[in-house]
């Protein structure tokens, strides 16, 4: 039963107030992209057992999408941040490294 702090409205939201949205920071490939890139964008997932960047929507709340860094093996949450980013911000990376010294952004 996860909780996340919504970075938009500050509420510590219960999982039941949120909707999960899969992996974060996917780069969209549209017309003109190769079959490989398109398949990768739409389907292929690292599905890591460990640090995972993902999307959540505060659906039963402010309605905003936000991103989270979470460990899929322990369910620890390293931090949440706005969806309007193309990569994890430095403070999130630092928070992860503080807890998982061996981890690096691949």
């Amino acid at each position: 039963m996860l909780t996340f702090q919504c970075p938009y409205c500050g509420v510590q939201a219960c999982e039941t107030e949120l909707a999960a949205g899969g992996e974060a920071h996917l780069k969209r490939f549209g017309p003109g992209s190769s079959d490989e890139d398109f398949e990768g964008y739409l389907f292929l997932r690292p599905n890591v057992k460990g640090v995972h960047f993902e999307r959540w929507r505060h659906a039963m709340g402010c309605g905003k999408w936000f991103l989270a860094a979470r460990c899929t093996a322990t369910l620890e949450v390293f931090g949440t941040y706005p969806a309007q980013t193309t990569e994890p911000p430095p403070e999130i990376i630092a928070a992860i490294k503080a807890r998982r010294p061996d981890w690096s952004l691949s």
Partner: protein
Amino acid sequence: MSEGRVSALGGAQSQGLVNIRDIGLQGMVSLRADLAQAAKAVEQVTGVAMPAMRAITSGKACSVAWMSPDEVLILCDHAQADGMVTALSKALAGQHHLAVNVSDARALFGLSGPEGALRDVLSKITPADLTTLAPGEMRRTRLQQVAAAIWFETEAEARVICFRSVARYVFDLLAMSAHTSGAVGHH
């Protein structure tokens, strides 16, 4: 013509640990905009200062509730809502925004009773932490299976907004939670 205007439950009431009533027609305008930029216009039209995050502030005729970083909900007289939309659009001319009358899309309930009972009854159906919810703050959350917003007007009076189509569900949920033999005594 206001002929045949009815609120979702036509003023239904229920008595129990707390009393629950359909407040009736309530004007509501949803405004989406850059709130900082829109603050002046909002104050000018509603007479209420732009609320801070999660706050609901009230003036003489209106209340303004913070809904999200780019949305407020203005509560006003039902008959005034359309005028409010026009006034906002005028005041915000040139600024990207969306003002729309949503009065009839919602239902508004009033809950009155002892403070502890109010919080207990609501806590049977919402995961939000009501212990810390003070008057002046609005919490958007869920009431069991549907979305809703809750706030306390005073310690003895709470408000619940939900969508019109599920008004009956929310009313029934509240009424059952307020059943006199279901006191909790937690808050």
